[in-house]
């Protein structure tokens, strides 16, 4: 079966794509949540008053799908309390006040890897999670008994504004190559596909120069179409394999990992420094000096913005991530997370939500959906809680990529409606299974 996966042409706005990442000055304090990944929150192992250093373990992994958390600065733990996080969960957040030293913990040492188990163990300890957005613990993807036919390195970065993956590919290609070598050698990966969207010539050139001509490595330049970087989309466009609903990429022999994640793996294997900082694109129409910043995890966003010259106007909407899938945050004091690839700030005019008008049944939403979902059918079925209709609409596949809402001429909140429809579908199905 062959498909033509649709999408939308979003504005690129990648103004920072040629700006190498700048390391920001150490923040006065960091607030590090114990839940920056998919899965159970990590368990805090420090107490208020403890002294920590850069790379000190402050919360340990809790269960299989979880990830440890390390301190990103040196200083004193001043508070540990539950807080509501942007993902809707409540989890402990550890506040550390800086001593300004940035001294490194003695436990940080280069991991010794001689086989697959060593690599998995190292990835587990590194605290690395998917840096592209979802934050799935990276070690879990590789800790599989199933054969990995393709490791797809996702450098699509299809969201507007964001360039943190692009500059990471350019600045840290050595780390990426190092990681690929070790992963291929020990994990048993048949083929590596490095996929980059066409609008990133500097990243494409860097990767081609470093990896071009190598056996079992394919460098694939993808057309610029949002959501090219979505997992199922990039798998289809690089391998023609279809990941069905309920399946994981590994079920079709694929592992997809963000290019920045791969760079972080390389860095950990080289130095033993766990994931404590990351590249963040700082942009938006009111940021004075847009930049790519290497920020310690837990840095309050206001300090990140201040490092970029502050605002030219009052911020009315601040996002974690890009404008298509990013999450609007309530305060400027929220921290940089492991999966924060960008922070964007917008003025009132840009933040305003247009008024939704009547649906004209133009089907722009359905025609934009990469998976062929028909939101109009879903909305109709949702109104009457019609399980068969919801199933038929395909709403279960919805990944909230936002193409439908973007394309809608009536400016209707389709993604929101889809989320409700999807949840209703699962609820109705569970009810039916019980009956």
């Amino acid at each position, binding site marked *: 079966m062959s498909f033509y996966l649709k999408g939308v042409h*979003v504005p690129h706005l990648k103004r920072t794509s040629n700006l190498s990442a700048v390391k920001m000055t150490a923040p006065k304090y960091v607030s590090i949540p114990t839940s920056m990944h998919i899965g159970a929150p990590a368990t805090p192992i420090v107490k208020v008053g403890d002294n920590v250093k850069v790379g000190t373990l402050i919360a340990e992994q809790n269960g299989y799908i979880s990830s440890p958390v390390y301190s990103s600065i040196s200083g004193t733990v001043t508070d540990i309390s539950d807080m509501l996080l942007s993902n809707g969960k409540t989890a402990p957040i550890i506040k550390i006040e800086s001593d300004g030293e940035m001294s490194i913990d003695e436990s940080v040492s280069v991991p010794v890897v001689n086989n697959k188990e060593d690599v998995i163990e190292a990835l587990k300890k590194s605290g690395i999670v998917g840096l592209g957005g979802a934050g799935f613990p990276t070690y879990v993807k590789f800790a599989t008994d199933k054969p990995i036919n393709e490791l797809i390195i996702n450098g699509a970065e299809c969201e507007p504004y964001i360039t943190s993956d692009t500059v990471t590919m350019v600045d840290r290609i050595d780390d990426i190559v190092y990681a690929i070598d070790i992963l291929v050698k020990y994990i048993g990966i048949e083929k590596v596909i490095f996929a980059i969207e066409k609008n990133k010539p500097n990243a494409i050139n860097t990767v081609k120069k470093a990896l071009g001509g190598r056996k079992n490595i394919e460098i694939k330049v993808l057309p610029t179409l949002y959501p090219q970087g979505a997992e199922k989309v990039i798998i289809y466009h690089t391998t023609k394999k279809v990941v069905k609903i309920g399946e994981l990429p590994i079920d079709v022999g694929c592992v997809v990992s963000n290019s920045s994640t791969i760079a972080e793996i390389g860095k950990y294997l080289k130095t033993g420094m766990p994931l404590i900082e990351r590249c963040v694109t700082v942009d938006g129409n009111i940021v004075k000096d847009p930049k790519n910043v290497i920020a310690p995890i837990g840095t309050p966003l206001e300090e990140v913005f201040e490092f970029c010259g502050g605002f030219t106007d009052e911020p009315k909407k601040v996002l974690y991530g890009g404008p298509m899938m990013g999450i609007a945050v309530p305060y400027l004091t929220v921290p940089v997370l492991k999966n924060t690839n960008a922070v964007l700030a917008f003025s009132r005019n840009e933040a305003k939500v247009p008024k939704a008008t009547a649906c*004209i049944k133009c*089907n722009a939403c359905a025609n934009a959906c990469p998976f062929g979902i028909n939101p109009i059918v879903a909305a109709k079925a949702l109104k009457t809680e019609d399980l068969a209709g919801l199933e038929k609409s395909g709403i279960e596949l919805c990944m909230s990529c936002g193409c439908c809402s973007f394309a809608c001429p*009536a400016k209707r909140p389709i993604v929101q409606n889809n989320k409700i429809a999807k949840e209703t579908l699962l609820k109705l199905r569970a009810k039916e299974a019980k009956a």
Partner: protein
Amino acid sequence: MAASRMYLSISPHIKSKITTASIMLDVTISLLPATIAGCIIFGMRSLAVVAVCILASVASEYIFNLIVKKDQTIGDLSAVVTGLLLGLNLAANIPFWQAAIGSAFAIIIVKCIFGGLGCNVVNPAITARVFMLIAFGAMAKVAFPISVDAVSSATPLELIKNDATPSLVDLFLGKKGGAIGETCTLALIIGGIYLIARRVITWHIPVTMIATVFIFSFIIEDFSFISALSWTMSGGLFIGAIFMATDYVTSPSTPLGKIIFAFGAGFITVIIRFYGTYPEGVSFAILLMNIVNPYIETLTQRKLFGGREK
């Protein structure tokens, strides 16, 4: 940097520049060539008829919303499109009061009481045209170009039936009897190309419908190319296929659905033209296909990517 209150809307935080009003504006622009052609062919009274229709449509919607206490929706320009389309479907010599009643019928009866834009079951302009054809007799049909003599008081379809076909060039340029906007094939094609280029519509419906009519006319007319072309360029086929059958609300969304819909409309047009009592069948054909549209739509949904096996 005090934390001020910020917007917490759901993603996506950017929207395309296309709005309902911009789509309706595109449709209006695409109908301008036909409007201008109508004014040249049938005289400036055409413009007055079109203006009456637009004004009556917008006023009807405005007053309806006022009475039922709904938010004003005339800003989306859909009433302008309905009025303009209906005006172009009327004869230049129609009494103004009839044009106004037809417009009010299209907006209030066909659109607003079903819930307004997007909720109507059938196309307002085409339903109003059929309504006027029945209510006011032949008045909605008879018209003749100012430059042509009285022979043309019959429309070309009636003439074809009487073996007095206008030349193909006249048919293409619109020098023939008919409604204001339906006669000039050239102007309608220009409008259609504009709409396709602006991605307001796709080619599927107009091309399929026109081709279907052509092919069946060709077969029925003993494989006469000239006759088939005459049939195709006569009556309201082009305005219907390009501007009325493509109405979003009342036509299918997938390419396959569109082709089935347009084939059906073309086929019914031919049946009515050759074997029915009315000389023209485009309006009825589209109206009938509007009614079966929900079924076509259900049967031709896009294939899901990675959906559950049924």
